[in-house]
């Protein structure tokens, strides 16, 4: 089993150098996008302040003491080099300064102000290297009354209106057991960084990028903002229903907690749906003849659809619907995703990589495929795995100097 996916072909971001103070989700996932596409990313960590995902014991194989037995950390930090450096230890400053001179990009997502207190805010970093590109992600942004407040994934979701719109009309809001704000923000920051690299190539100018989870999340509810501002309609939770499709919902299937999602958007799809379930008499009723009438009788419609879906396995419902040209999809579990999904399998979305401590397991690949310069996902670094390599090979430190710094205790 390999430690790298794909062969050693050319990579889109080959030659780009990133100094990475990212941690938790936002920072880790931002630099991961760059690393998986060939940028050389030096991820700075410290044993005195381990990453959230190095401490999280979500699986039983993860111990309280070993920072390297966390598969979640590995997912978030593929393809990076890892250096262990105690930023609060004064002599570490000279190493960071050299890394800044080496780097094209500095990536961070500490609480606003924290980088400055460590001596590595944008003013300090750009004084060392004026054309640096530095990006900082945060919950609220670097300025404004809430800037210094701490936030997690749901903070952006809650304040942006996303959570309020999710759930059933007769109940309170709910949220999925997966992140949103924490995983959408890194795509925007990485987009900004790569665009800034091209801007620098053309103009010679660096860039400081300030990205807020709240601000990125609020974009997606713009139609609801307009609906309030211009029409006076305050949208709220509406289950699985949407105004422009019916039936549009999640229907029970044979088996324990098995479901299939179905969405009928056009008249053509409604005709196909009716034929696919064998044209039962109710499908000819006037109350279901048009989208508007189906919307008016949606409770009855959904009950009738469920009577049919209940008799079939979710996979059969999807196959029957899709064969007929009706959008449908099994409500898949993680087991379905990892074991039974022929699409993800053929596209090699999960690659099996070998980690020196954890062993072989599946890693998601970037969900946007550059077909000529494919992502090459490598396993994540163990804590401090590349400290010596980075210092002596990338920064050109002599062995003597490295050992002296080691003895001063900065590499921990």
């Amino acid at each position: 089993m390999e430690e790298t996916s794909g062969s050693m072909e050319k990579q889109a971001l080959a030659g780009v150098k990133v100094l990475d103070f990212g941690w938790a989700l936002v920072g880790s996932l931002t630099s991961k996008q760059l690393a998986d596409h060939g940028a050389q990313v030096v991820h700075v960590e410290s044993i005195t302040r381990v990453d959230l995902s190095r401490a999280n014991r979500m699986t039983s194989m993860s111990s309280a003491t070993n920072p390297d037995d966390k598969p979640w950390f590995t997912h978030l930090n593929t393809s990076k080099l890892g250096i262990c450096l105690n930023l609060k230890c004064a002599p570490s400053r000279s190493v960071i300064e050299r890394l800044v001179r080496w780097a094209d990009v500095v990536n961070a997502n500490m609480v606003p102000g924290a980088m400055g207190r460590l001596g590595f805010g944008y003013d300090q970093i750009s004084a060392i290297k004026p054309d640096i590109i530095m990006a900082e992600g945060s919950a609220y942004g670097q300025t404004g009354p809430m800037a210094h407040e701490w936030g997690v994934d749901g903070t952006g979701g809650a304040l942006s209106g996303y959570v309020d719109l999710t759930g059933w009309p007769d109940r309170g809001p709910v949220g999925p057991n997966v992140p949103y704000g924490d995983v959408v923000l890194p795509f925007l920051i990485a987009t900004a960084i790569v665009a800034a690299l091209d801007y620098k190539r053309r103009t010679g100018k660096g860039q400081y990028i300030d990205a807020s989870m709240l601000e990125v999340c609020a974009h997606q509810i713009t139609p609801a903002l307009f609906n309030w501002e211009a029409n006076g309609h305050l949208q709220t939770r509406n289950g699985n229903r949407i105004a422009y499709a019916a039936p549009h919902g999640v229907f029970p299937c044979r088996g324990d907690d098995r479901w299939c999602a179905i969405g009928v958007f056009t008249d053509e799809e409604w005709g196909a749906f009716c034929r696919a379930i064998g044209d039962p008499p109710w499908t000819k009723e006037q109350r279901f003849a048009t989208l508007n009438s189906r919307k008016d009788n949606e409770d009855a419609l959904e009950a009738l659809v469920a009577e049919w879906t209940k008799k079939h396995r979710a996979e059969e419902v999807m196959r029957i619907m899709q064969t007929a040209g009706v959008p449908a999809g099994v409500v898949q579990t993680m087991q379905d995703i990892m074991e039974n999904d022929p699409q993800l399998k053929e596209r090699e979305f999960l690659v099996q990589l070998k980690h020196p401590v954890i062993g072989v397991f599946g890693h998601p690949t970037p969900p946007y495929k550059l077909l000529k310069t494919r992502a090459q996902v490598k396993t994540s670094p163990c804590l401090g795995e590349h400290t010596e390599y980075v210092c002596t090979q990338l920064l050109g430190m002599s062995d003597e100097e490295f050992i002296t710094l080691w003895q001063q205790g900065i590499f921990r």
Partner: protein
Amino acid sequence: MADSLLSGFRALDLTDEKGSACGKILSSLGVETIKVEKPGGDPARAIPPFLNDGPDPEKSLHWLAFNTDKKSVTLNLEASQGQDLFRKLVEEADFVLESFTPGYLDSLGLGYEALARVNPRIIVTSITPFGQKGPYAKYKGSELIASAMSGVLATNGDPDRPPVREGPDSIYFRSDAAAALGTVIAHYHRQMTGEGQQVDVSLQEVAVSRTSSNLVVWEFDKQLIKRNATIRTVGARATQWLWQCKDGYVFWPYMGGKGGARGNRALSQWIDDDGLENPLKKVTNWEEFDFAAISREELDVHQNAIRKFFMNHTKKEIAEEGFRRKINAAVINSPADVLENPQLRARSYWVDLEHPELGTRLTYPKHFFLCNQTENFVRQRAPLIGEDNEEIYAKEMGLSGTEITALKQAGVI
């Protein structure tokens, strides 16, 4: 006016609702983005809500939201003259964004390989439900279907009801962010080497990539994390993250260890100050507090006390007093509340854009991020159908009035 990051590049945007935010992100970065719509307009212009509730392709608030700063030309890609015109446009373009069923553009002679013969530097970004290849490649999809097939939907909703979708089109939006990222990475490579390529984005894969922590819990422990309403399960620990308050709801993640310590301590103090019964007081070291070490019953006692506490306060109190006390809560804003949020206002997040044809003005989010050297802003309302036909076809491509009239009569533009 300052530059934008990608000023001077051009995109042709053929997408429907699945891909419109990708072009919006690129246009906010300064890419001149031309929506190429079929005569009559992009079918996504039929998506409600509409201004004043009347269906009209020029009044879809959904469409207006995600097509800012774009130009619009109409073009029938199924007519051979339309295909010729499109190839001419591709000669001068840097990007093509599209969201058709895989194979459709190939059938018109406009697939990636064909376009690369016209312009080898072109980057074609394709945003589809399941990606370009594979047994489901031609399956139909949507926000809901992608959520179902990704494992996200199974984790959302009340246990006694079917799994429920996220309210906004969150998967479309994040897929478009992924597509924008793939596009600029391919762009960087193209500018360095001259080589163009296709970027293949699958809505399903974009959504699966959110489930990382659940993937490892299945792979290593064969546990499935299911929907559990307001309870968030991270690995083995399940605690309440959404709470009802006097006049709405709040987000306050009950978390152990260092991550939750400051907020937990501050909340416990506030419960005390309210004079309510406070079982949280028994915790002496929040930094070391581990949910695995307390019983289910004890956790219930804690969460019942927290529930009573939040019901004692309004959203405004939790936002203002909670901020002062640093409990790390966030109120669950309605769309109306979002417009009033003081943080967004302080950062000049909103911009009013005029819609003279509609006799109104609308308030838009202005940026995706801020830069110190460039302005990457939403500046201009979405285009009317074919608003830029004259500019592109006549002024830029040099078609004569007669030719344009003939194309119109043939239903090409």
